[in-house]
């Protein structure tokens, strides 16, 4: 089972180590982790994707919740949330495949964000599965480098966090 955990926490030094350390310590493999500031000053929000069964997930959530700087940790249900991932892909464009590549770019709604001679950087945003398909398609070309941000997610409508259900 794959789970998405959202964590709202104080933005203090070391909070990243504390949070990520907990996962490894409790035997949980992080598939992706993204963290950044939020609309609240002094607060950060993590979105972490992990594999594990429900019981283990619940245990990790409670252990996270126990950390002094964690304000709330909760799991996000995919159907109730908007999820996005961002990727950059650097390709070397062969002249004879250029037209075909442009079609693929349009098809997966990627954007060309840089072209330095034959080397282009493409940008893709979407659900993890959409980014996966884009990567699969671009794999047929000469990929020089690529990078993904990991998933971020927000629940639709009023989220459980906003309803102030803490604990």
């Amino acid at each position, binding site marked *: 089972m794959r789970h998405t955990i959202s964590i709202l926490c*104080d933005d203090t030094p070391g909070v990243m*180590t504390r949070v990520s350390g907990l996962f490894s310590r409790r035997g949980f493999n992080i598939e992706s982790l993204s963290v950044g500031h939020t609309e609240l000053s002094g607060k950060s929000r993590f979105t972490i994707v992990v594999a594990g069964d429900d019981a283990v997930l619940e245990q990790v959530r*409670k252990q996270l919740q*126990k950390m002094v700087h964690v304000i709330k940790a909760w799991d996000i249900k995919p159907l109730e949330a908007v999820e996005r991932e961002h990727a950059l892909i650097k390709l070397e464009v062969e002249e004879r495949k250029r037209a075909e590549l442009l079609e693929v770019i349009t098809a997966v709604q990627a954007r060309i964000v840089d072209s330095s001679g034959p080397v282009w950087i493409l940008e893709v945003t979407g659900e993890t599965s959409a980014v996966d398909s884009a990567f699969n398609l671009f794999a047929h070309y000469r990929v020089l480098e690529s990078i993904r941000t990991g998933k971020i997610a927000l629940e639709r409508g009023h989220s459980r966090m906003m309803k102030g259900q*803490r604990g």
Partner: protein
Amino acid sequence: MRKGNVTGAKALLKALEAQGIEVIFGYPGGANLPIYDELSRSPIRHVLVRHEQGAAHMADGYARSTGKTGVCLATSGPGATNLVTGLANAFMDSSPLVAITGQVSRAMIGNDAFQEVDITGITIPITKHNYLVQEPWELPHVVEEAFYLAGSGRPGPVLIDVPRDVQQEEFSPHQAKFPQLEGYNPTLEGHPGQIKRAAALLKGAQQPLIVAGGGVYQAGAVQALRLLAEKADIPVIHTLMGKASFPNSHPLCLGLLGYHGRVAANTAVSEADVILAVGTRLADRSTGPLGTFARQARIIHVDIDPAEISKNVPAFLPIVGDAKGILIQLAGLLPPAKRAGWRARLEEVAAAHPLRGKLKGVSIPNILRLLRGLVDDPLMVTDVGRHQIFTAHYFPVDSERSFISSGGLGTMGFGLPAAIGAKVGNPGRTVVAVCGDGSFLMTCQEVATAVAENIPVVALVMNDYCLGMVKQLQDSFYGKRHESCRFGRNVDYARLAESMGALGVRVTAEGEIEPALREALASGRPAVVEFVLDEPANVYPMVTGASLLEYVE
């Protein structure tokens, strides 16, 4: 740099004084000398230990025996890493501690400076929280917060790492605004609906049972638990940490459960239909193999830490909160009951399975039996090994905070320093450390601390010339191949003690036990009594199979 009239070190000491701290267990070094310099002008007592691990265990023993937060102090680098075992020990057993460490100056952090170690990084998994103080003016707030965290909710150790230049820098005290601890709100009140449901469950139970953990005494709920058990006539078993959570000689008490538990206690937990587990993690030493644990029972799990609920054993009915309030409410909802059948069944098992240790000769059970006759209501502290389990079985304690042992971490060497800390917190009580020869040698240098500081604890060294618990495992599971478990006969514990200025007595015959104990107890000095045991006797019962009911006794 801000200038002002207070140094960081002074602010730290003032903040500790404001917390009402009466004693610090510590050891100096280059990176904490500014703190020591301030300490010389402070009314707080300092106990100079002989190894920082001892400082942490003393602070821990002080905390467990008084309920107040213990404080230890070490320098950077090796001083700080020497605290690590003590912090892990306190963390596992939820003991409230504040550890203060010196750190290299801010400009040097990250450069692998002399005696620099990332102690906040190292201790993340074994502290409730920790701080690397960046500015001297943060100190009053950090200290206050650290004590609040250590002592509230589920207690635990908190570490404050203070760079040397932060200790030295001057600042003008001002009311800085600090963010609230938004993410830390321990639940204290049990959910009234859950408590009602628990009462209904217990009321309808035919064979209810209480499992008392260390959280009961930590919450000050010993009396509340007793009233509940008596009113509803519910038998009680306890974990090692929970030994002082219920009077051991009470007719409802069936003793220790678990891996080395009493047969009656393990039978009770296996046959109960409703279990009220209070202030216990239901850890593996207590449950044995999880697949067979308490299969008949619906478990009501009361704990202050929501993460303990259903971590190991699924709870049928969780109640998160402070045990005392919950137990009082629960007792109020329960009608008086008599459970003659269930109690008779368990008493029958207890009678059929008495403890079978030897109450003759120079044996641990016999020494403990004789000790009981000589001293009223002592505070018993143990080390880790067979003597620990023997003490749990053969030395009933009936008053609160009278049994201290390293449960979760099982730290050999805990006994003597923890006893010293307990004695500092309870100068009026007799404090006895029951040690194994192996365990004692791990921290025996603290005898010198006890002598120098005039802390009269009595340490009993149960000398079987081997690592008894290891030998027992090798006897049972490794074909009696006793690899690396025997000690030579090269340590004379009485002389070792005497060389450090303590009273040292050596006992080799049964007739010498009582006189030696009398002498040690009456001496008013730190004393070490070495008992040369007749034989390295194994401790039973011991669970050997796939359930608590498969055991050797």
